């Protein structure tokens, strides 16, 4: 796990908080570490807090999409929270697409979404 990311376990969920800007290598490390923890810690959901990221470029977006796809294959939903307003504007200009990644404003909303998904029948 990169030192710049704190990963906590809360119930069935993993909560990863990015602490500062990440190098590409750290982004990949985070992606792989979370995918691996889904199995080891039997997590049903992952929340990645990216509010400390000043830039979300194509590389970071691709890594987050890959994380979500991998985690879903292993039975966990991923929700990205805390995208800064300036970062969101840059992503729109860039035409960066996060689909099928799910996003929420903050941790509370993400947990509510995950709780809802847990009780709803799997699509």
């Amino acid at each position, binding site marked *: 796990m990169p030192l710049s990311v704190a990963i906590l376990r809360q119930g069935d969920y993993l909560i990863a908080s990015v602490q500062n*800007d*990440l*190098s*590409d*290598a750290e982004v990949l490390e985070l992606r792989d570490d979370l995918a691996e923890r889904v199995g080891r810690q039997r997590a049903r959901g992952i929340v990645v807090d990216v509010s400390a990221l*000043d*830039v*979300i*470029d*194509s*590389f970071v977006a691709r890594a987050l999409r890959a994380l979500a796809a991998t985690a879903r294959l292993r039975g966990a939903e991923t929700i990205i929270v805390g995208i*800064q*307003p*300036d*970062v969101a*504007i*840059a992503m729109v*200009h*860039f*035409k*960066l697409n996060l689909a099928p990644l799910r996003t929420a404003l903050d941790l509370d909303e993400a947990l509510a979404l995950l709780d809802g998904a847990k009780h709803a029948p799997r699509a």
Partner: protein
Amino acid sequence: MNGDLRVAIEADADLVEARAAARRLATSLGFSRTDATLIATAISEIARNIVVHVGRGTITMRALVEDERRGLQIVAEDNGAGIRDVEAALDDGYAGRGGLGLGLPGARRLMDDFEIDTSPERGTRVTMKKWRVRDELERLRDRRRNER
């Protein structure tokens, strides 16, 4: 007079420094927080292209003063083999074919001016400029006033 700010790009960790330096310079030149983010994102993509496709290069940032507007110029240079098909590299559709990815077309959309000079002998030089929005608005206002 501000000197040029040069960042050596040799490893992916250098992108972190390039992004931070771009943000600091843009902010000091009076760019909005949003524009500083657009600039830092464009630099990140261009710098990554250098690391991934060539291995090493430099990024030079410079304050621009032209007529009554102010801006920031970014020049990314490498001595690699050049980009064989620039048109394709700037095409969004190219990304899916495992080429340069979204980087170049995305960076071009984030900046105001975007030029690529590339050849197998000289390598590649990408020159990007961003102008302060408030200067552009003032220019438009002046022009309208003069037309009356």
